[in-house]
């Protein structure tokens, strides 16, 4: 199936962001003293806003000498006003409707994405990743399922069929997707991210978040995003429509030195970890 073509790319360009993100952006920007850190915190919590900012700041037309892999990094390079204007441009498109033809719960999905982001960032800290780079882990966690946003919006019937088949046959969602439309949300998200010239590490983390175990030498980011996703599934925080995710491969358990339960206990108080995600997604 020819999934990525010009029409799809054009439609993605016009994709609105999550209602939570849009209303917060409009609210913040209506104030004369719009606080930069508050605006960054909104942009980096809405997958559509975050993706759009990353896409523009990494645009080959600008050709920045280094890839921008977090929103705050983007602010430091292209300036607050540019980020604010990108956010406002996206907000002006409208809001992703809460109801959709795929019957996919976008609020639950946002919680899942934010939860994964928080877990990935915490895991990065546990694995000794420098504070400066931990925002990359947060963002990769947030965007790992971006392909699903595309599917809900552009191919709701097929996505809905995949969701139902996965439930019925007790399949991992990505497997059901490949069965029905020969590609899965991880690949769709990665192909778009690559088309937009996002940083290579982020593209790979999206592409391999269900299959990092198949790689001969997976990066820490790829492994943490794969494990972080499963941690959030195990804890039942939000929902990504995947009720039978595959187990974390042994090789990754070995590399990380922890299985899912051990990661959960190392993380500690997940309520406080998820408090921020809950607060954002429930507004």
């Amino acid at each position: 199936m020819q999934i990525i073509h010009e029409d799809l790319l054009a439609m993605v360009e016009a994709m609105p962001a999550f209602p939570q993100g849009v209303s917060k952006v409009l609210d913040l920007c209506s104030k004369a003293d719009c606080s930069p850190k508050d605006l960054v915190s909104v942009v980096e919590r809405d997958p559509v806003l975050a993706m759009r900012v990353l896409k523009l700041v990494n645009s080959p037309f600008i050709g920045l000498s280094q890839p921008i892999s977090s929103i705050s990094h983007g602010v430091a390079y292209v300036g607050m006003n540019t980020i604010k204007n990108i956010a406002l441009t996206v907000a002006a498109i409208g809001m992703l409707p809460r109801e959709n033809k795929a019957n996919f719960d976008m609020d639950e999905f946002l919680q899942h994405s934010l939860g994964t982001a928080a877990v990935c960032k915490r895991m990065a800290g546990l694995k000794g990743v420098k504070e400066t780079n931990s925002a990359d882990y947060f963002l990769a966690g947030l965007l790992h399922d971006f392909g699903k946003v595309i599917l809900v919006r552009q191919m709701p019937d097929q996505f809905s069929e995949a969701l139902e088949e996965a439930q019925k046959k007790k399949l991992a969602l990505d497997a059901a997707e490949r069965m029905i439309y020969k590609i899965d949300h991880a690949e769709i998200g990665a192909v778009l991210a690559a088309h937009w010239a996002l940083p290579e590490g982020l593209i790979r983390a999206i592409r391999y978040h269900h299959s990092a175990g198949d790689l001969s030498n997976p990066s820490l980011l790829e492994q943490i995003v794969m494990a972080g996703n499963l941690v959030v599934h195990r804890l039942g925080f939000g929902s990504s429509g995947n009720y039978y995710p595959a187990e974390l491969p042994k090789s990754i358990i070995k590399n990380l030195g922890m299985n899912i339960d051990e990661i959960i206990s190392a993380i500690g108080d997940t309520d406080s970890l998820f408090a921020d995600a809950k607060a954002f997604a429930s507004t």
Partner: protein
Amino acid sequence: MRFKFWGVRGSIATPGPKTVRYGGNTTCIEIRGASNELVILDAGTGIFQLGNTLAPEFPININIFLSHTHWDHIQGLPMFSPIFVPGNKITIHGAMDIVSQHSVKEVLSRQMEHAYFPVKETELAAELSYVDLQENDCIEFGETRVTNCLLNHPVLNFGYRVESAGKSLVFTGDHEWPYNIYDQTDPEYGAYQEIINARRQKIIDFFKDVDALIIDTSYDDIEYEQSKVGWGHGTFDKSIAAAKESSVKKCYLTHHEPTRSDDELEDLYFAALERNDISDSDPEFILAKEGVEFLA
């Protein structure tokens, strides 16, 4: 390499008795490379007078580099007489608009639309071409090369480094030193500070050892802290610190705040020199003055 200021005022042209000494035109700098090749940095209102001096050299090859496309840096372009004369070749370099994704040509063509100007961009007689610069591009002509560095302003702003036969000059365009958007008590503060530090170091390296640093010094430091943070401009103390740190030979302070009279500008300048304890081993600090030519 020679250079001459044709406009040193920030934000808006300010003709009048209070700005006669330093000048009221907005930013424009003429540079002549070792073989007299012409580079123009920014096309504020000062470029009008510059254009009127160029006729003896027609047909002429002109490379214009725009730091950014805010009004005070492009407003003189439609009145720059060489664009109306056949045979002249004019190349305009600059950054595209990241938000709208419009090229430099698209952005500039708009200021010549019917509602704003009687002559359309397509009707100009000179041979005009446009280059959307990418960070770290290197443009060479004659003995001159121009490299760029992304600086910090509310719109993409390139600083330019012009080198010719062993001499060098940096012009910042409009630049505010990036600051930490987090409070010291925020968990994000440390990581963000590291990004800022790396960014500052990259800019200092770009300035390093130039013969002439022409730097946005719009504000006094107190006025900046009180009400101008985030506006995208530099201050006396920050410019002086950066010039010292990058060991430039001479530092020209420019983009004078438009409400400032000549006397007020000089008062702030003298106070800043005093405050910053300038000694013999430091760079020479000079207030940029319209109509004055310097050797780099």
